[in-house]
Protein backbone atom coordinates (compact mmCIF):
# COMPACT_ATOMS: atom_id res chain seq x y z
CA UNK A 1 0.00 0.00 0.00
CA UNK A 2 2.64 2.48 -0.91
CA UNK A 3 1.83 5.83 -2.44
CA UNK A 4 -1.55 7.49 -2.64
CA UNK A 5 -3.98 6.48 -5.31
CA UNK A 6 -7.04 8.68 -5.54
CA UNK A 7 -8.41 7.66 -8.93
CA UNK A 8 -10.59 4.86 -7.56
CA UNK A 9 -12.20 7.21 -5.08
CA UNK A 10 -12.52 10.02 -7.60
CA UNK A 11 -14.34 7.83 -10.07
CA UNK A 12 -16.93 7.06 -7.38
CA UNK A 13 -17.35 10.62 -6.20
CA UNK A 14 -21.07 10.40 -7.04
CA UNK A 15 -21.45 7.96 -4.14
CA UNK A 16 -19.91 10.50 -1.80
CA UNK A 17 -22.11 13.26 -3.13
CA UNK A 18 -25.21 11.13 -2.62
CA UNK A 19 -24.00 10.28 0.88
CA UNK A 20 -23.34 13.92 1.65
CA UNK A 21 -26.84 14.81 0.55
CA UNK A 22 -28.32 12.14 2.84
CA UNK A 23 -26.19 13.49 5.68
CA UNK A 24 -27.38 17.01 5.01
CA UNK A 25 -31.07 16.38 4.74
CA UNK A 26 -31.30 13.97 7.65
CA UNK A 27 -29.30 16.36 9.83
CA UNK A 28 -31.41 19.27 8.68
CA UNK A 29 -34.73 17.61 9.45
CA UNK A 30 -33.40 16.36 12.78
CA UNK A 31 -32.15 19.80 13.68
CA UNK A 32 -35.58 21.32 13.12
CA UNK A 33 -37.29 18.57 15.12
CA UNK A 34 -34.58 18.79 17.77
CA UNK A 35 -35.16 22.52 18.00
CA UNK A 36 -38.85 21.95 18.62
CA UNK A 37 -38.09 19.33 21.27
CA UNK A 38 -35.49 21.61 22.81
CA UNK A 39 -37.83 24.57 22.85
CA UNK A 40 -40.64 22.54 24.38
CA UNK A 41 -38.29 21.17 27.04
CA UNK A 42 -36.81 24.58 27.76
CA UNK A 43 -40.26 25.99 28.32
CA UNK A 44 -41.38 22.91 30.28
CA UNK A 45 -38.41 23.29 32.60
CA UNK A 46 -39.89 26.55 33.77
CA UNK A 47 -43.31 25.02 34.55
CA UNK A 48 -42.94 23.27 37.89
CA UNK A 49 -40.68 20.91 39.76
CA UNK A 50 -42.05 17.52 38.64
CA UNK A 51 -42.08 18.52 34.98
CA UNK A 52 -38.66 20.00 35.37
CA UNK A 53 -37.42 16.76 36.87
CA UNK A 54 -38.79 14.72 34.00
CA UNK A 55 -37.18 16.97 31.44
CA UNK A 56 -33.87 16.94 33.31
CA UNK A 57 -33.96 13.15 33.44
CA UNK A 58 -34.42 13.03 29.69
CA UNK A 59 -31.61 15.51 29.16
CA UNK A 60 -29.18 13.78 31.48
CA UNK A 61 -29.84 10.30 30.12
CA UNK A 62 -29.32 11.44 26.58
CA UNK A 63 -26.31 13.59 27.26
CA UNK A 64 -24.52 10.95 29.26
CA UNK A 65 -24.87 8.00 26.92
CA UNK A 66 -23.37 7.55 23.47
CA UNK A 67 -25.47 8.36 20.46
CA UNK A 68 -24.56 5.04 18.87
CA UNK A 69 -26.10 3.17 21.79
CA UNK A 70 -29.22 5.33 21.62
CA UNK A 71 -29.44 4.62 17.93
CA UNK A 72 -29.24 0.87 18.54
CA UNK A 73 -31.94 1.10 21.15
CA UNK A 74 -34.26 2.83 18.71
CA UNK A 75 -33.47 0.66 15.70
CA UNK A 76 -32.88 -2.76 17.22
CA UNK A 77 -34.54 -2.37 20.57
CA UNK A 78 -37.93 -0.89 19.75
CA UNK A 79 -38.97 -3.78 17.45
CA UNK A 80 -39.07 -6.02 20.51
CA UNK A 81 -41.79 -3.68 21.75
CA UNK A 82 -43.54 -4.03 18.43
CA UNK A 83 -42.36 -0.70 17.05
CA UNK A 84 -40.51 -1.22 13.80
CA UNK A 85 -39.04 1.85 12.17
CA UNK A 86 -37.08 2.19 8.96
CA UNK A 87 -33.40 3.11 9.25
CA UNK A 88 -34.05 6.64 8.06
CA UNK A 89 -36.97 7.14 10.44
CA UNK A 90 -34.94 5.67 13.29
CA UNK A 91 -32.07 7.93 12.36
CA UNK A 92 -34.21 11.04 12.37
CA UNK A 93 -35.91 10.11 15.62
CA UNK A 94 -32.60 9.20 17.25
CA UNK A 95 -30.86 12.35 16.09
CA UNK A 96 -33.76 14.60 17.05
CA UNK A 97 -34.01 13.16 20.53
CA UNK A 98 -30.25 13.39 20.89
CA UNK A 99 -30.03 16.93 19.57
CA UNK A 100 -33.13 17.97 21.50
CA UNK A 101 -31.48 17.20 24.82
CA UNK A 102 -28.54 19.46 24.05
CA UNK A 103 -30.68 22.13 22.48
CA UNK A 104 -32.99 22.19 25.51
CA UNK A 105 -30.06 23.16 27.70
CA UNK A 106 -28.82 25.75 25.26
CA UNK A 107 -32.22 27.32 24.75
CA UNK A 108 -32.85 27.34 28.49
CA UNK A 109 -29.56 29.15 28.99
CA UNK A 110 -30.55 31.61 26.30
CA UNK A 111 -33.86 32.31 27.99
CA UNK A 112 -32.17 32.71 31.36
CA UNK A 113 -29.64 35.06 29.84
CA UNK A 114 -32.19 37.51 28.53
CA UNK A 115 -31.57 40.51 30.75
CA UNK A 116 -34.35 41.13 33.26
CA UNK A 117 -34.60 44.78 32.26
CA UNK A 118 -36.66 44.45 29.10
CA UNK A 119 -38.85 41.82 30.77
CA UNK A 120 -39.61 44.21 33.61
CA UNK A 121 -40.26 46.97 31.15
CA UNK A 122 -42.71 44.71 29.35
CA UNK A 123 -44.44 43.91 32.60
CA UNK A 124 -44.57 47.56 33.50
CA UNK A 125 -46.27 48.13 30.16
CA UNK A 126 -48.92 45.64 31.18
CA UNK A 127 -47.95 42.68 29.00
CA UNK A 128 -48.90 39.18 30.11
CA UNK A 129 -46.31 36.45 30.50
CA UNK A 130 -47.18 34.59 27.28
CA UNK A 131 -46.90 37.80 25.29
CA UNK A 132 -43.65 38.61 27.05
CA UNK A 133 -42.23 35.21 26.19
CA UNK A 134 -43.31 35.35 22.59
CA UNK A 135 -42.56 38.97 21.81
CA UNK A 136 -39.83 40.04 24.19
CA UNK A 137 -37.86 37.01 25.34
CA UNK A 138 -37.70 34.52 22.50
CA UNK A 139 -35.93 36.45 19.82
CA UNK A 140 -33.14 37.92 21.95
CA UNK A 141 -32.75 34.51 23.58
CA UNK A 142 -32.30 32.81 20.22
CA UNK A 143 -30.02 35.58 19.09
CA UNK A 144 -27.77 35.22 22.10
CA UNK A 145 -27.44 31.47 21.72
CA UNK A 146 -27.16 31.43 17.98
CA UNK A 147 -23.46 30.62 17.94
CA UNK A 148 -24.12 27.73 20.31
CA UNK A 149 -27.01 26.59 18.15
CA UNK A 150 -24.91 26.59 15.05
CA UNK A 151 -22.17 24.74 16.92
CA UNK A 152 -24.70 22.18 18.05
CA UNK A 153 -25.90 21.74 14.52
CA UNK A 154 -22.39 21.00 13.39
CA UNK A 155 -22.11 18.40 16.14
CA UNK A 156 -25.39 16.90 15.02
CA UNK A 157 -24.09 16.75 11.48
CA UNK A 158 -21.06 14.92 12.76
CA UNK A 159 -23.08 12.54 14.90
CA UNK A 160 -24.95 11.56 11.78
CA UNK A 161 -21.74 9.83 10.71
CA UNK A 162 -22.78 6.95 12.96
CA UNK A 163 -26.00 6.39 11.07
CA UNK A 164 -24.31 4.05 8.64
CA UNK A 165 -24.22 1.56 11.50
CA UNK A 166 -27.94 1.05 10.93
CA UNK A 167 -27.53 1.01 7.16
CA UNK A 168 -28.32 4.62 6.40
CA UNK A 169 -26.27 5.46 3.33
CA UNK A 170 -24.82 8.71 4.62
CA UNK A 171 -21.41 10.18 3.93
CA UNK A 172 -19.28 7.98 6.19
CA UNK A 173 -21.13 4.92 4.95
CA UNK A 174 -20.43 5.97 1.39
CA UNK A 175 -16.77 6.32 2.33
CA UNK A 176 -16.84 2.81 3.73
CA UNK A 177 -18.45 1.49 0.56
CA UNK A 178 -15.78 3.09 -1.53
CA UNK A 179 -12.99 1.82 0.62
CA UNK A 180 -14.29 -1.71 0.39
CA UNK A 181 -14.68 -1.41 -3.37
CA UNK A 182 -11.28 0.14 -3.99
CA UNK A 183 -9.43 -1.25 -0.97
CA UNK A 184 -7.87 2.24 -0.76
CA UNK A 185 -9.05 3.06 2.73
CA UNK A 186 -7.02 6.12 3.53
CA UNK A 187 -7.74 7.83 0.23
CA UNK A 188 -11.46 7.27 0.65
CA UNK A 189 -11.45 8.86 4.06
CA UNK A 190 -9.37 11.82 3.01
CA UNK A 191 -12.27 12.59 0.72
CA UNK A 192 -14.86 11.92 3.38
CA UNK A 193 -13.09 14.27 5.79
CA UNK A 194 -12.89 16.89 3.08
CA UNK A 195 -16.62 16.60 2.46
CA UNK A 196 -17.42 16.97 6.15
CA UNK A 197 -15.26 20.04 6.43
CA UNK A 198 -16.99 21.48 3.39
CA UNK A 199 -20.42 20.74 4.85
CA UNK A 200 -19.46 22.10 8.25
CA UNK A 201 -18.05 25.26 6.79
CA UNK A 202 -21.00 25.67 4.49
CA UNK A 203 -23.43 25.32 7.34
CA UNK A 204 -21.54 27.74 9.51
CA UNK A 205 -21.71 30.27 6.72
CA UNK A 206 -25.41 29.71 6.19
CA UNK A 207 -26.02 30.08 9.91
CA UNK A 208 -23.97 33.24 10.03
CA UNK A 209 -26.08 34.52 7.15
CA UNK A 210 -29.31 33.68 8.94
CA UNK A 211 -28.02 35.40 12.05
CA UNK A 212 -27.14 38.52 10.11
CA UNK A 213 -30.56 38.79 8.54
CA UNK A 214 -32.76 37.60 11.40
CA UNK A 215 -30.86 39.16 14.25
CA UNK A 216 -29.82 42.35 12.56
CA UNK A 217 -30.23 44.23 15.82
CA UNK A 218 -27.27 42.38 17.27
CA UNK A 219 -24.86 43.58 14.67
CA UNK A 220 -25.70 47.25 14.71
CA UNK A 221 -23.76 48.29 17.81
CA UNK A 222 -22.28 51.71 18.04
Amino acid at each position, binding site marked *: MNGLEFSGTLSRIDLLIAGAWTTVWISGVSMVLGLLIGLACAVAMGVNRPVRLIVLTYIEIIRNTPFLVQLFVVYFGLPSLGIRLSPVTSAIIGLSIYGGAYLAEIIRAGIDNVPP*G*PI*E*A*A*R*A*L*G*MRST*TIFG*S*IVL*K*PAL*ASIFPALSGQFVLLLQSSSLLSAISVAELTGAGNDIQSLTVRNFEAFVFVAGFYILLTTGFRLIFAGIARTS*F*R*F*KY*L*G*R
Partner: protein
Amino acid sequence: MSTQNAGAVPAVEIEQMDKYYGQFQSLTGVSLTISQGEKIVVCGPSGSGKSTMIRCINALEQHEGGKLMVLGREVTKDRASIDAARKATGMVFQSFNLFPHMTVLENCMIAQRKVKGTSQKEARDLALHYLERVRIPEQADKYPSQLSGGQQQRVAIARALCMKPAIMLYDEPTSALDPEMVKEVLDTMLELAKEGTTMVCVTHEMGFARSVADRVVFMDKGRVVETAPPKEFFDSPQSERAKTFLAQMLH
Protein backbone atom coordinates in the same frame (compact mmCIF):
# COMPACT_ATOMS: atom_id res chain seq x y z
CA MET B 1 -63.39 49.66 47.21
CA SER B 2 -61.67 53.04 47.30
CA THR B 3 -61.66 55.62 50.04
CA GLN B 4 -62.48 58.48 47.77
CA ASN B 5 -61.85 62.03 49.02
CA ALA B 6 -64.14 64.74 47.98
CA GLY B 7 -63.17 66.09 44.55
CA ALA B 8 -60.39 64.33 42.65
CA VAL B 9 -59.09 60.93 43.62
CA PRO B 10 -55.40 61.08 44.64
CA ALA B 11 -53.08 59.66 41.98
CA VAL B 12 -51.30 57.52 44.54
CA GLU B 13 -52.12 56.87 48.14
CA ILE B 14 -49.69 54.89 50.25
CA GLU B 15 -50.50 54.04 53.83
CA GLN B 16 -48.06 52.33 56.17
CA MET B 17 -46.68 50.24 53.36
CA ASP B 18 -44.08 47.53 54.23
CA LYS B 19 -42.03 45.54 51.82
CA TYR B 20 -39.67 42.65 52.49
CA TYR B 21 -37.09 40.95 50.34
CA GLY B 22 -36.88 37.62 52.11
CA GLN B 23 -35.79 38.55 55.62
CA PHE B 24 -34.74 42.03 54.68
CA GLN B 25 -37.22 44.83 55.24
CA SER B 26 -36.81 47.23 52.42
CA LEU B 27 -39.74 49.56 53.17
CA THR B 28 -41.05 50.29 56.63
CA GLY B 29 -44.33 52.07 57.19
CA VAL B 30 -44.13 54.27 54.15
CA SER B 31 -47.02 56.73 53.83
CA LEU B 32 -47.37 59.20 51.02
CA THR B 33 -50.25 60.75 49.14
CA ILE B 34 -49.69 62.14 45.68
CA SER B 35 -52.40 64.27 44.15
CA GLN B 36 -53.18 64.17 40.49
CA GLY B 37 -50.96 66.48 38.53
CA GLU B 38 -48.41 66.68 41.29
CA LYS B 39 -44.66 66.38 40.56
CA ILE B 40 -42.74 64.48 43.19
CA VAL B 41 -38.97 64.06 43.35
CA VAL B 42 -37.76 61.20 45.54
CA CYS B 43 -34.19 61.24 46.81
CA GLY B 44 -32.10 59.59 49.46
CA PRO B 45 -28.98 57.50 49.91
CA SER B 46 -28.36 54.29 48.04
CA GLY B 47 -30.41 51.40 49.35
CA SER B 48 -32.93 53.64 51.06
CA GLY B 49 -35.86 52.07 49.22
CA LYS B 50 -36.58 54.64 46.53
CA SER B 51 -36.68 52.13 43.72
CA THR B 52 -38.60 49.69 45.84
CA MET B 53 -41.32 52.23 46.53
CA ILE B 54 -41.68 53.24 42.92
CA ARG B 55 -41.70 49.62 41.80
CA CYS B 56 -44.47 48.86 44.28
CA ILE B 57 -46.57 51.66 42.82
CA ASN B 58 -46.15 50.02 39.41
CA ALA B 59 -46.96 46.62 40.97
CA LEU B 60 -43.66 45.25 39.73
CA GLU B 61 -43.15 44.31 43.37
CA GLN B 62 -45.87 43.33 45.77
CA HIS B 63 -45.96 45.09 49.10
CA GLU B 64 -46.54 43.02 52.18
CA GLY B 65 -48.09 45.35 54.71
CA GLY B 66 -50.22 48.49 54.59
CA LYS B 67 -52.21 49.75 51.71
CA LEU B 68 -51.44 51.07 48.26
CA MET B 69 -54.01 52.74 46.07
CA VAL B 70 -53.47 53.89 42.54
CA LEU B 71 -56.11 56.23 41.14
CA GLY B 72 -58.36 55.22 43.99
CA ARG B 73 -58.13 51.49 43.33
CA GLU B 74 -56.34 49.32 45.81
CA VAL B 75 -53.44 47.26 44.50
CA THR B 76 -53.58 43.73 45.85
CA LYS B 77 -52.34 40.35 44.71
CA ASP B 78 -55.35 40.24 42.47
CA ARG B 79 -54.42 40.12 38.79
CA ALA B 80 -57.01 42.71 37.78
CA SER B 81 -55.83 45.23 40.34
CA ILE B 82 -52.25 44.75 39.18
CA ASP B 83 -53.25 45.28 35.58
CA ALA B 84 -55.12 48.40 36.58
CA ALA B 85 -52.11 49.81 38.43
CA ARG B 86 -49.87 49.13 35.44
CA LYS B 87 -52.36 50.68 33.09
CA ALA B 88 -52.46 53.79 35.22
CA THR B 89 -48.70 54.15 35.45
CA GLY B 90 -45.83 54.38 32.99
CA MET B 91 -42.37 53.47 34.13
CA VAL B 92 -39.01 54.72 32.91
CA PHE B 93 -36.02 52.80 34.15
CA GLN B 94 -32.49 53.90 34.85
CA SER B 95 -31.15 51.50 32.27
CA PHE B 96 -33.77 52.27 29.59
CA ASN B 97 -34.65 48.59 29.13
CA LEU B 98 -35.63 49.01 25.52
CA PHE B 99 -36.40 45.85 23.59
CA PRO B 100 -33.15 45.33 21.73
CA HIS B 101 -34.63 43.30 18.89
CA MET B 102 -37.21 45.88 17.89
CA THR B 103 -36.85 49.18 16.18
CA VAL B 104 -37.66 52.34 18.07
CA LEU B 105 -41.08 52.42 16.43
CA GLU B 106 -41.78 48.77 17.27
CA ASN B 107 -40.73 49.42 20.84
CA CYS B 108 -43.39 52.06 21.07
CA MET B 109 -46.04 50.00 19.29
CA ILE B 110 -45.77 46.55 20.84
CA ALA B 111 -47.59 47.26 24.10
CA GLN B 112 -50.35 49.19 22.34
CA ARG B 113 -50.84 46.30 19.96
CA LYS B 114 -50.59 43.45 22.43
CA VAL B 115 -52.11 44.98 25.53
CA LYS B 116 -54.67 47.35 24.15
CA GLY B 117 -55.22 45.67 20.80
CA THR B 118 -54.82 48.96 18.99
CA SER B 119 -54.71 48.67 15.22
CA GLN B 120 -51.36 48.73 13.45
CA LYS B 121 -52.01 52.12 11.96
CA GLU B 122 -53.28 53.80 15.09
CA ALA B 123 -50.44 52.38 17.16
CA ARG B 124 -47.97 53.65 14.62
CA ASP B 125 -49.47 57.13 14.53
CA LEU B 126 -49.49 57.43 18.29
CA ALA B 127 -45.92 56.14 18.52
CA LEU B 128 -44.77 58.71 15.98
CA HIS B 129 -46.66 61.37 17.83
CA TYR B 130 -44.84 60.69 21.08
CA LEU B 131 -41.50 60.22 19.36
CA GLU B 132 -42.00 63.72 18.05
CA ARG B 133 -42.82 64.87 21.53
CA VAL B 134 -39.46 63.58 22.76
CA ARG B 135 -37.90 65.05 19.63
CA ILE B 136 -36.54 61.96 17.93
CA PRO B 137 -39.06 61.06 15.20
CA GLU B 138 -36.17 60.65 12.75
CA GLN B 139 -34.80 57.70 14.76
CA ALA B 140 -38.00 55.67 14.43
CA ASP B 141 -36.54 52.93 12.28
CA LYS B 142 -33.28 52.46 14.12
CA TYR B 143 -32.56 49.78 16.65
CA PRO B 144 -31.83 50.82 20.25
CA SER B 145 -28.17 49.84 19.97
CA GLN B 146 -27.77 52.45 17.27
CA LEU B 147 -28.83 55.27 19.57
CA SER B 148 -26.98 57.25 22.20
CA GLY B 149 -27.93 56.72 25.81
CA GLY B 150 -29.85 59.97 25.91
CA GLN B 151 -31.80 59.03 22.82
CA GLN B 152 -32.54 55.58 24.22
CA GLN B 153 -33.91 57.07 27.39
CA ARG B 154 -36.15 59.38 25.38
CA VAL B 155 -37.46 56.38 23.46
CA ALA B 156 -38.19 54.72 26.80
CA ILE B 157 -40.16 57.80 27.82
CA ALA B 158 -42.07 57.81 24.55
CA ARG B 159 -42.77 54.11 24.90
CA ALA B 160 -44.28 54.66 28.32
CA LEU B 161 -46.26 57.67 27.11
CA CYS B 162 -47.81 55.68 24.28
CA MET B 163 -49.84 53.81 26.88
CA LYS B 164 -51.21 57.18 28.02
CA PRO B 165 -50.62 56.58 31.69
CA ALA B 166 -52.06 58.94 34.25
CA ILE B 167 -48.88 58.76 36.29
CA MET B 168 -45.31 58.68 35.03
CA LEU B 169 -42.75 56.99 37.25
CA TYR B 170 -39.07 57.63 36.63
CA ASP B 171 -36.37 55.65 38.42
CA GLU B 172 -33.12 57.59 38.16
CA PRO B 173 -33.72 58.15 34.48
CA THR B 174 -30.49 60.07 33.92
CA SER B 175 -28.00 58.28 36.11
CA ALA B 176 -26.85 55.89 33.41
CA LEU B 177 -26.16 58.71 30.98
CA ASP B 178 -22.96 60.62 30.20
CA PRO B 179 -23.02 64.17 31.44
CA GLU B 180 -23.77 65.55 28.00
CA MET B 181 -26.84 63.37 27.54
CA VAL B 182 -28.35 64.08 30.94
CA LYS B 183 -29.44 67.50 29.82
CA GLU B 184 -31.42 66.36 26.81
CA VAL B 185 -33.40 63.88 28.88
CA LEU B 186 -34.03 66.31 31.71
CA ASP B 187 -35.22 68.88 29.19
CA THR B 188 -37.63 66.35 27.74
CA MET B 189 -38.99 65.48 31.14
CA LEU B 190 -39.30 69.11 32.10
CA GLU B 191 -41.35 69.80 29.05
CA LEU B 192 -43.64 66.85 29.74
CA ALA B 193 -43.97 67.91 33.36
CA LYS B 194 -45.43 71.24 32.30
CA GLU B 195 -48.42 69.48 30.85
CA GLY B 196 -49.99 68.28 34.01
CA THR B 197 -49.44 64.53 34.11
CA THR B 198 -48.61 63.28 37.55
CA MET B 199 -44.93 62.52 37.89
CA VAL B 200 -42.91 60.64 40.48
CA CYS B 201 -39.22 60.80 39.82
CA VAL B 202 -36.32 59.28 41.70
CA THR B 203 -33.35 61.46 40.90
CA HIS B 204 -30.38 63.20 42.40
CA GLU B 205 -30.41 65.97 39.87
CA MET B 206 -30.98 68.76 42.33
CA GLY B 207 -31.33 71.40 39.67
CA PHE B 208 -34.18 69.46 38.16
CA ALA B 209 -35.80 68.95 41.55
CA ARG B 210 -35.67 72.64 42.30
CA SER B 211 -37.18 73.72 39.03
CA VAL B 212 -39.83 71.04 38.59
CA ALA B 213 -40.86 69.38 41.83
CA ASP B 214 -43.88 70.34 43.86
CA ARG B 215 -42.50 68.29 46.73
CA VAL B 216 -39.28 66.47 47.48
CA VAL B 217 -39.56 63.17 49.34
CA PHE B 218 -36.42 62.19 51.20
CA MET B 219 -36.03 58.52 52.12
CA ASP B 220 -33.59 56.68 54.33
CA LYS B 221 -33.45 53.06 55.44
CA GLY B 222 -36.82 52.21 53.97
CA ARG B 223 -38.66 55.13 55.55
CA VAL B 224 -39.87 58.46 54.31
CA VAL B 225 -37.86 60.81 56.49
CA GLU B 226 -38.87 64.17 55.16
CA THR B 227 -41.36 65.60 52.67
CA ALA B 228 -41.13 69.25 51.73
CA PRO B 229 -41.24 71.68 48.83
CA PRO B 230 -37.83 71.79 47.16
CA LYS B 231 -36.81 75.23 48.31
CA GLU B 232 -37.52 74.36 51.91
CA PHE B 233 -35.84 70.95 51.58
CA PHE B 234 -32.63 72.19 50.04
CA ASP B 235 -32.26 75.37 52.05
CA SER B 236 -33.32 74.14 55.47
CA PRO B 237 -33.62 70.37 55.69
CA GLN B 238 -35.19 69.30 58.96
CA SER B 239 -33.63 65.90 59.63
CA GLU B 240 -29.96 65.29 60.41
CA ARG B 241 -29.81 62.57 57.78
CA ALA B 242 -31.01 64.88 55.05
CA LYS B 243 -28.49 67.51 56.12
CA THR B 244 -25.49 65.17 55.87
CA PHE B 245 -26.88 63.70 52.66
CA LEU B 246 -27.20 67.08 51.03
CA ALA B 247 -23.73 68.06 52.25
CA GLN B 248 -22.26 65.02 50.51
CA MET B 249 -24.27 65.48 47.37
CA LEU B 250 -22.75 68.89 46.86
CA HIS B 251 -19.27 67.81 48.01
